[in-house]
């Protein structure tokens, strides 16, 4: 296992996240895709910390903070989505059409 392998893995995960975000029409599916993208960044941090960095604790610590921040963000996102669901009784993004040019 080399640094390059880890970076390629992270990049592929990020790509899957972006692809999922564009393809998915379900709000929870989109949130999961976003989570994939954030965790791809985490893999990057940890692999850089393990293989190459001068300051290797910093990278590992960063990923722990990222996990905490992501949890906050997802909590708010789910709260907003619940209020959406109460209104429309479905989680399809296609219904987000009230605001437009």
């Amino acid at each position: 296992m080399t640094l390059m392998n880890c970076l390629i893995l992270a990049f592929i995960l990020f790509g899957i996240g972006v692809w999922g975000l564009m393809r998915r029409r379900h709000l929870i599916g989109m949130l999961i895709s976003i989570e994939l993208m954030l965790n791809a960044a985490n893999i990057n941090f940890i692999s850089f910390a393990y293989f190459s960095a001068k300051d290797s604790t910093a990278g590992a610590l960063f990923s722990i903070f990222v996990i905490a921040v992501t949890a906050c963000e997802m909590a708010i996102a789910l709260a907003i989505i619940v209020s959406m669901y109460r209104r429309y009784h479905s989680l399809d993004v296609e219904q987000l059409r009230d605001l437009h040019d």
Partner: protein
Amino acid sequence: MFESILLPDLLLLAFPFIVIGSRLFCDFRSAFPWRVANIGFILIFIMLNMIPLASGEGHFFIFNWRLDDFGVLMREVFMVSAILGIWLSKDYFEHGADGKPQMHQIAEYIGAIAFATFGAFTVVSACDLLTFFLGLEIATIPMYALTAWNKKDQMGSEAATKYILMGSVATAFELFGFSYLYGFSGSLFFNDIASAVATNSTSPLLWVSILFLFSGIGFKLTLFPFYTWAPDVYEGAPTPVTAVLSVTSKATAIAFLAVLVFGPLAAVQEQMSPLIALLAATTLLVGNLGALKQTRLRRFMAYSSISQAGYIMIALLGPAEIGKSAIVYYMFIYAVANYLAFFVFGIIGHHREETFASLRGLSKQNPALAIALAIAMFSLAGIPPLAGFFGKFHLFFAGATTGHYFLVAFAVINNVLALFYYIQLIKSAWIDEPEGTLSSLRLNRRQRLIIIMLSIAVVALGFVPFLSNNIFAGFTF
């Protein structure tokens, strides 16, 4: 010494808990939390004004909390925005407006604004990537909640859904950029990154990371390819939240870029300038073209603020001192003029719909309000006697110092385009005849006072840089 300098930050950090806690000791409908919030915010603002400005590196606290003059002045911008934001919000907690029901829980609302402001403080005082990232997140996450604050309004929850999806993607992009920057330099500290960038400025890892960082922050600053969420969110959010979003969130994003471009990435600023210039030019054009065909006021303000972001980007091309002073100065003016416009729209929104058509006959019905609106619009458009002109002049001056004459010329031509739609708004307030009878506009004492204060500020800020003794230190004519 350090304690007194840190006091505003610490007070602001404790502040949300004080305001939310104060609700425990009073009646549900009491104005007590709002009074506490007023006193606290104004106190913090006064304390910030008393901090002696230190040129150069600034003061450090535990080696990764820095107070330089840019940081202190940006803090003042954030506090102005927070104070005006809660003043604007107060009426929306008393009765509904613009077809939306009344909002509730003012204490928590103020707490969320205070948290966002603290996040913005963190962004301007960070010295390493981790603090920087946390600051940006603390500044953004409360904004998602604020957008959806009106639970009974379905537009609000739709806007918040769009905002949080886009915002989280932006966070992911930024984080990916940070991870490459960490991998490139091997450290999270800005000083180490700056020296790594200076020694090895052609590394592909660095440039991929810059690309990711710019697309991440491009979402938050509403730069050209990433701006599409802004009009929807600005329209769907409650009016005071739109005002806070367009000032605090934009100021945070531009401070983020200024810290990054003039700090760790300073060595490659020259090589980045085509990218920044391209983003600035396209953002200007798209914002101006988008604003031309709008009929709803908040959507119009969204496009106007997109184009303002383009103007501010031009200052990032200049030398550090001039660029930073221009950004700070423009942010003050932008904050004041934008809030003046939003106060006028808010007062109209309390009685009618927030559209261009509702402005008709304003000059006959309430000339003072129409004059305030004209002042705000002329300042945003940059007409000479008003503050907006001087702000834009310094932005363009910063860009021209490093020889980006073509971009500056393009921005000036765009300014003419912008003048067209700002004047259209003034036309509907001053010239267009109303259809049928107008519902009466009532202003309470607070609204009248604020509108007079802000109108004077927009006129005076152009030639009285009273807020700080060295805001012009960077300009040497």
